[in-house]
């Protein structure tokens, strides 16, 4: 038997149909408005069980194997507004894995269940104005005050920032330096002292709202700490693996679709009396890229199977994130190039694809951070 069961195939059809039926008709409008209506879209996804595939059934999850997660993200990557795919990914695989993995039953009941149902919107707050990929350098604090925590700080580049009901926040809960003394806490956005200081204007991913968030003495229960106090950095590192794999899964779907669309165009568009695809150079370039996408696709599937076996997938996630982001930049560039002038026009999908894919070499851990992690992992390092 191959990797995919009949149920996997049916599931892929479901997600593809959902994207075509519920997202694509609105893509242009959401891109233009700089935001998509998460409160309309997420409950639809939740009702179909798509927002908590891997989570416990007790909280509404599907307890699905990681292959479903890979299929879901691949199909999300095929949409023409990748900002929405990213925002959904934040809900499913960036802001909630730690809560599901380490959260108390009470915390999961209060925040995970509605996130899986799509009735509440989640965001992940890690990056700060002075601390991006260097997470250990962050300054946001959550200081004890009796049974509460007082949260103070600023978080930047927060996806779903304008619409989120709660933020999975990384904050310092003690004065220990570096990565120690950091905890993951859940901050509801209706808390006093929370504010969205500005909506950010991005190069791409425009259908997704991105914000700067300010926490000014926000009082939350100390029970909102996810897992063990002081272990937040470690927990976030684990959560990053989910995020990075999802990015890579999405990019495979996105690149596969982009190459197909480009091939369709090259067969249709004629120059010098023949379809453009009759030019061997163009055909071979596409074949070359398709081979690279194929390698990545199967690397991803190996990662999903390793996750299914319960293995640590840090190396898989690091390599997949790095390679997928770099390959997506190359694919986006060539797809635009092969479309010629029309490819440079905003009305053609290639322009948006070029802008959207550029993010993945930066967000979720920049390429350079992936390389740093790999270099350390493989012993290519000296202090």
């Amino acid at each position, binding site marked *: 038997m191959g990797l995919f069961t*009949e*149920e996997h195939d*049916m*599931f892929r*059809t*479901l997600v593809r*149909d*959902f994207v075509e*039926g519920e997202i694509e008709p609105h893509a242009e409008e959401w891109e233009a408005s700089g935001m998509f209506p998460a409160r309309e879209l997420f409950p639809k996804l939740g*009702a*179909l*069980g*798509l927002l908590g*595939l891997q989570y416990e059934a007790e909280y509404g999850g*599907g307890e*699905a194997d990681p292959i*479903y997660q890979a299929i879901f993200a691949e199909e999300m990557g095929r949409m023409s507004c990748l900002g929405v795919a990213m925002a959904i990914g934040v809900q499913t695989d960036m802001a909630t894995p730690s809560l599901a993995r380490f959260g108390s039953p009470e915390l999961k009941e209060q925040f995970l269940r509605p996130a899986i149902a799509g009735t509440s919107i989640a965001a992940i707050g890690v990056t700060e104005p002075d601390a991006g990929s260097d997470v250990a350098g962050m300054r946001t604090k959550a200081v004890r005050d009796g049974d509460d925590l007082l949260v103070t700080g600023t978080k930047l580049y927060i996806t779903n920032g304008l619409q989120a009901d709660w933020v999975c926040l990384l904050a310092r809960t003690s004065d220990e330096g570096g990565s120690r003394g950091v905890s993951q806490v859940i901050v509801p956005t209706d808390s006093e002292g929370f504010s969205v200081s500005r909506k950010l204007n991005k190069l791409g991913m425009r259908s997704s709202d991105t914000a700067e968030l300010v926490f000014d003495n926000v009082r939350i229960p100390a029970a909102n700490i996810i897992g063990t106090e002081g272990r937040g950095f470690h927990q976030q590192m684990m959560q990053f693996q989910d995020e990075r794999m999802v990015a890579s899964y999405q990019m495979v779907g996105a690149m596969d679709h982009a190459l197909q669309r480009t091939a369709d165009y090259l067969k249709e568009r004629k120059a010098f009396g023949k379809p453009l695809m009759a030019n061997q150079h163009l055909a071979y370039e596409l074949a070359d890229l398709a081979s690279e996408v194929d390698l990545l696709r199967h690397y991803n599937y190996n990662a999903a199977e390793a996750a299914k076996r319960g293995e640590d997938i840090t190396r898989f996630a690091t390599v997949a994130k790095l390679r997928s982001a770099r390959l997506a930049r190359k694919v986006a560039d060539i797809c635009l190039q092969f479309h010629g002038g029309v490819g440079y026009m905003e009305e053609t999908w290639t322009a948006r694809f070029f802008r959207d894919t550029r993010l993945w070499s930066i967000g979720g851990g920049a390429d350079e951070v992936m390389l740093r992690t790999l270099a350390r992992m493989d012993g290519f390092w000296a202090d």
Partner: protein
Amino acid sequence: MPSTVVAGSFCYRRVTVGKLSYMNVVVCVKQIPDPADPGALDPTTKTLKRDGKLILDESDSYGVEMALQLVGDSGEVTLVSMAPNGEVSGLRTALAMGAAKAVLVSDDALKGSDSLTTAKVLAKAIGRAGDYDLVLAATESSDGYTGTVPEQIAEVLGLPSVTFAKSITVDGSSIKVDRQTEAGYDEVTCPLPAVVSVTAGVVEPRYPSFKGIMAAKSKPVDQVGIADLGLDAGAVGWAGAGQEIVEVVAAEAREAGEVIEDDGEAYNRIVTFLSDLKVI
């Protein structure tokens, strides 16, 4: 003005005042080659090749949705299908949408069956589905397009037939059907049980949920051959077909449209064009 047609009388069971307390609906579904892939005809038999994976005919998804809406929480939807090679992929899709069980007729002897034979086979299969109040089908399949099977099933079963339903309402032991016509629609009242063909686009077929997909694999599919239905091999398939496909020819290519260069007066040409078509 909508007209009212009352079809022949029929008594049935388990009826409460106002609506059926519990309703069983059978939906005839066809599993067809994926229309997204280029189809091919067998040059010898001149029939569509069906040896690959088959999917649920999209036109049947409307009947499945209609049935699920009609039964709600108080009834059961049973699928009936005839397909080669024990194919169940399309049935699984409808089961994932919420149908409870399926009867699949699959038998090599059925190859070459014409629409009347198909109707006879499906009518027998419907008999295996248990008690039923209503049989739904699409108005026509997306691969064969004969558009005759639902009415033939009704005739074989001796039930009233209503075609081109755009809505169905259960009222006691009868149904009220809005029947699509070229001029508008007829309001038809029909006793149960009945066979109704459902037009596409009148309900929005639901997406099968993840849980529905996972549940579908454990739902019962009663796979039977013609012997199980009490049918003789000589009466079905090529042997029993009253129809013969004499020739298959390619459809004429569409003529190219007329391109009108706008010199400032092009709207007159468009108005004339639409007027000639009696659109305006």
